[in-house]
């Protein structure tokens, strides 16, 4: 089989925010290194582009790193590694400023200083924004900045299929050159995975079609644990039907959530008392954390107090009182999206919204230096679980995470690559041929199962069993269904036998990844018999710090199935406490400095 081999120093898989930031960091730290940036799409297509609302970083005089730390740790229901959170809050602002120096058009105050907006679960306004296209501007700024480093060699539309491992060390990757249709093997001293999340395992999600958990699955297949996979964030405001994201910034700017009766129902779920329209208050009502808001919707839907629209159940996000000028200044993209995709102009009518799967808090296990347990393999961004988000991520922490830990990954990988050197070629040749033979067999698959049918069944099953509220019974059913789907996947039938841009083949590889990642999610969720953050069990409604103040680690067993064990959480200065929002959050207990 014809496989092209080449040597580089660092391979970065994924050209989104984390991958680009890592590439720049590595190029700046060691300009002599050859850095290969592989991405299955052109970098500016990566899903970072769709992040809207903002990017956290302490900047106001009355704000502090400690406040950001407390919000993040309590928002994550104490499942965050506190050393990681400390490092994060101390470096987020610096990274945002670096983006500013690279040209990111952050929205400004009239005097030219950086402006910040309120965001859910954040006590003080610290969300930097570029109107409501923050992710877009960060991604394009990073992409354009990366162009000035000649040592960053882009391999656009290279679909990474495997990690190459030799003697317990990650020594490169294997990929399909989508345009040429052949396999390539890139040996490297260090590999960074920055492949994003896996939201597409759900039927209704805010994610792009490419968000299929490929990197997570590749690491998993090499025995690297996936951590905290049961924590999947439902964003409270997606468009019904399509799931398109309607940013939290709508609420940060003062938007209201109303049920079918026009009632601001969040006050009935521990987030009140009601704040006056036009005067949003941090950590109250609409500015509560995402898990609580999505759960409130679920209860409202059960009580029949939601709108039944053509596109499904929904509540109303009312922005009308903000006025046209403010909407155009702060939320122009939301106006464009609502008009195009549900035919609603938010200036004159409320936008129908509902929770949809949005973000995988968990991912490839890494330490605080972004290193995975597999030497030579690093991971950053949504694909990684560095321990920042715990059981529920706060909006605007993930964009900052891309820069903070993307940079760490780039620097760590550069150091590692300098020390490790490029591995021996002969061993990898055999491994690469074995891998390629497997993918070639998949391309020729002639079973009778349809790709779309398995994909849709996966999405439905995850929504049913691993949604906003879960139960042991439903999770077990989903696990069983996933096992059946994996079986059906073995009898997949593909119709396209070609190699050049064979997207059916690539979709089939992605589906295999999705099935593995979904399995880890469901198994970890089944194992966690408590309710914490985004993981709410109807059959174990309380948080159980005795048994579950720990990370889950889903590992691949020899038979391909998942086993789950547990890892302690790093707690440094904020002992586990009660998580309160609204008036209840004013209790002094939480404010006590450790």
């Amino acid at each position: 089989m014809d496989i092209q081999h080449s040597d580089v120093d660092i391979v970065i898989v994924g050209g989104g925010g984390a991958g680009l930031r890592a590439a720049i960091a590595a190029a700046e730290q060691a300009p002599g290194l050859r850095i290969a940036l592989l991405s299955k799409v052109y970098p500016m297509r990566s899903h970072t582009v769709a992040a809207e609302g903002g990017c956290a970083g302490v900047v106001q005089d009355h704000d502090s790193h400690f406040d950001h730390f407390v919000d993040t740790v309590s928002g994550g229901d104490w499942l965050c590694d506190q050393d990681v959170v400390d490092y994060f809050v101390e470096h987020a602002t610096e990274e945002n400023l670096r983006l500013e120096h690279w040209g990111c058009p952050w929205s400004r105050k009239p005097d030219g200083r950086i402006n910040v907006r309120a965001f859910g679960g954040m006590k003080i306004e610290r969300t930097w924004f570029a109107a409501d296209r923050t992710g877009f501007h960060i991604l394009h700024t990073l992409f354009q900045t990366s162009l000035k480093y000649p040592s960053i060699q882009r391999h656009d539309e290279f679909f990474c299929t495997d990690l190459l491992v030799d003697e317990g060390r990650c020594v490169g990757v294997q990929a399909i050159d989508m345009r040429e249709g052949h396999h390539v093997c890139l040996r490297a001293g260090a590999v960074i995975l920055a492949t994003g999340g896996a939201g597409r395992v759900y039927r209704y999600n805010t994610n792009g079609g490419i968000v299929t958990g490929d990197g997570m699955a590749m690491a998993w297949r090499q025995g690297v644990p996936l951590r905290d996979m049961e924590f999947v964030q439902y964003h409270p405001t997606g468009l019904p039907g399509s799931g398109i994201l309607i940013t939290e910034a709508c609420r940060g700017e003062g938007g209201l959530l109303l049920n079918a009766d026009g009632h601001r129902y969040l006050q009935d779920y521990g987030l009140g008392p009601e704040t006056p329209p036009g005067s949003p208050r941090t950590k109250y009502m609409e500015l509560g954390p995402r898990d609580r808001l999505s759960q409130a919707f679920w209860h409202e839907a059960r009580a029949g107090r939601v709108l039944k629209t053509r596109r499904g159940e929904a509540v109303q996000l009312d922005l009308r009182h903000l006025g046209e000028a403010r909407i155009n200044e702060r939320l122009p993209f939301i106006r464009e999206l609502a008009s195009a995709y549900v035919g609603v102009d938010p200036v004159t009518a409320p936008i129908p919204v509902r929770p949809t799967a949005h973000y995988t808090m968990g991912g490839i296990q890494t330490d605080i230096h972004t290193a995975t347990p597999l030497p030579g393999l690093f991971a950053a961004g949504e694909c990684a679980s560095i321990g920042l988000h715990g059981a529920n991520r706060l909006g605007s922490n993930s964009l900052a995470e891309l820069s903070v830990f993307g940079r760490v990954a780039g620097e760590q990988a550069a150091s590692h690559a300098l020390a490790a050197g490029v591995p021996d070629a002969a061993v990898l040749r055999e491994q690469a041929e074995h891998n390629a033979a497997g993918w070639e067999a998949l391309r020729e698959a002639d079973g009778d199962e349809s790709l779309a049918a398995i994909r849709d069944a996966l999405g439905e099953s995850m929504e049913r069993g691993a949604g906003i509220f879960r139960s042991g019974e439903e999770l077990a059913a989903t696990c069983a269904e996933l096992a059946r789907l994996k079986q059906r996947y073995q009898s997949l039938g593909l119709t396209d036998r070609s190699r050049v841009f064979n997207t059916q083949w690539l979709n089939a590889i992605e589906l295999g990844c999705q099935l593995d990642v979904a399995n880890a999610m469901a198994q970890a969720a089944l194992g966690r018999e408590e309710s914490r953050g985004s993981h709410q069990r109807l059959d174990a409604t309380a948080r159980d710090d005795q048994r579950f103040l720990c990370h889950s680690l889903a590992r691949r067993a020899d038979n391909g199935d998942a086993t789950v064990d547990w890892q302690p959480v790093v707690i440094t200065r904020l002992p586990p406490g009660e998580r309160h929002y609204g008036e209840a959050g004013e209790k002094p207990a939480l404010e006590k400095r450790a």
Partner: protein
Amino acid sequence: MSGSLKVRVQRYRPEEDDAPWWQSFEVPWSEDTSVLDALNHIKDVEDGSLSYRWSCRMAICGSCGVMVNDEPRLGCKTFLRHYADADEIVLRPLENLAVERDLVSDIDPMLAHIETVQPWLQREQAEAPEAGETLQTPVQMARYESFSHCINCGLCYAACPQFGRNPDFLGPAALTLAQRYNLDSRDEGREARMPFLNGEDGVWACTFVGYCSDVCPKDVDPAAAINQGKVASNVNYAVNLFRLLRGGDDA
């Protein structure tokens, strides 16, 4: 509001075909069905071998540009309901670019042109983050902000007959990006970019057809950016001429 519509797609499979050919499908639609949804329906149900690019399905990633009835459009932001009265929808890969397969075009020429104009913020002295932000008022930002909204979808290249005639023409997106940085109050890279703008394949290769701005899905108005670039190019020429006449050695 619903129905079904004939969708005719240009096919080209490089390993089997020497020339493009047409394939027709009958696609059911409802009020929300986009051209991208139609393609996904075809791939799932009718013919799995049809290839096209897509990802975000919310008009921000820029992947799914295609010719819809001879107009360059984003598949995800074009709805079948608008063609309910038409006999059919005809889908082709983007004009003026090579076809890799089916609806997948080769956008590397556009990317190469974008790289040419050095689209990154240039400062003579790089600041450390500790120096804080470079001040920029909302009025200063407004000078370039709309030009920074380009998603690199390539529709403007498909719309530009000058790029069709001369693929070396830097084209709408690249020249807009150059202008975006030239107008940024924080940038000091204008001198480095002007040679490309002034050059034979720079702003003067544009004849102000203006269709690029009509098709831009993000209202970037590249025609405006390029023609403002012509003004800048003239000023730059005059300044250099003045320097030359004064005997400066930096002209």
